[in-house]
């Protein structure tokens, strides 16, 4: 197997591992905030490793830039969503700065 193919196989498998881990965490963790923690791991690491894994298969350099752009967008969006969802569910006395 060529180096590029091996690279893709390794990194997409790693990305898949984090997605499955996130999904299992979403099912098995006991409360909402820990489930949110599992979700963000899938969003960040899972998607990032898959992006890295697909990189060797691109046809032009601008496609690689597009892939990184997608990852950056998803990172920012999932970070914002995680913060807001956690805050909206937190009991008021848990927020320290007010």
């Amino acid at each position, binding site marked *: 197997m060529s180096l590029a193919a091996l690279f893709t196989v390794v990194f997409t498998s790693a990305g898949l591992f984090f997605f499955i881990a996130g999904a299992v965490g979403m099912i098995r963790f006991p409360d909402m905030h820990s489930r949110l923690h599992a979700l963000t791991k899938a969003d960040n690491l899972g998607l990032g490793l898959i992006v890295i894994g697909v990189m060797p298969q691109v046809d032009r350099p601008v496609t690689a830039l597009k892939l990184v752009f997608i990852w950056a*967008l998803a990172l*920012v969006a999932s970070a*914002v969503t995680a*913060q*807001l969802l956690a805050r909206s569910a937190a009991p008021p006395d848990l927020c320290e700065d007010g």
Partner: protein
Amino acid sequence: MIGPAFDLLLALIVIAVALAATLGRDNFGAVVFFIVYGSLLAVAWTRLGAVDVALAEAAIGAGLTGLLLVGALARLSRLEVFSPKPPGAGARALCALTAASVAAVVAYALTGLDPDGGGLTETVAADLDRSGVQNPVTAVLLNFRGYDTLLESIVLLVVLVGVWSLAQDRHWGGAPGLAQHARPDGVLATFARALPPIGLLIGVYVVWVGTSEPGGAFQGATILAAVWLLAAMAGLTDAPSVTRRSVRVIVIAGPALFLAIGTVGALAGTFLALPPDHAKRLIQVIEAGLTISIAATLALLVLGFPQRAPP
């Protein structure tokens, strides 16, 4: 062998999600399943090779409609609307029979289609050079069947008028929706400051690239409307009053431009005909106008009818 297995799995999940959305008892579950349905359907369209439709599904189905439905549901629960009595067994049987018949007809038609293209593919490809664009979907939407697109954009206007007609008399002249606010240095406000330039870039890109690659005016307009709504949700900008002239001009501009170009074509021969040497420029102009109007219309639709008294 893997391809069909993936497709089968995706199809089963999509059907399960559709059933969960329609058969569930609680409204919130139905809304969330509908949003999920939009995301998965975008993947399905991509798998079928229909990327333009997938773009529209991702933008409208998973994005804007999710926004709209969640807001509507929140408003319903705040107003304490009483649920109407569920329909009787006879009405439900009739609905089930109608839905099943329609599904059977569609399934029969689908099985009769040639899976390897055919249909209108060759007809469109034969005239593609004269249409002014390389993307066959854009050629059909804006040139060969421009009539349909013109009517669709006017239908959006009619819908907007319908939504505005729900306003109470004392609110007419005020801004649509309720005033939103957010913590000025918080996560939401920062996100709403950072995202619109990126959304503007992506939206304009999707419209511009639609002439040669998958894309188009509706998809780009939805992206622009969505990021503007984000800024409005964070309280960074407020919706303008619906009676302002500038609002009405922007909303009408796209269909009016399309109609004007079509009428000029009528004077020269056929209504909505585009001369082949100028077709590309004309299509770009029409798409630009449609994008601005549709973006404004969609944003106003999601905001709703005026709920604040005029200042």
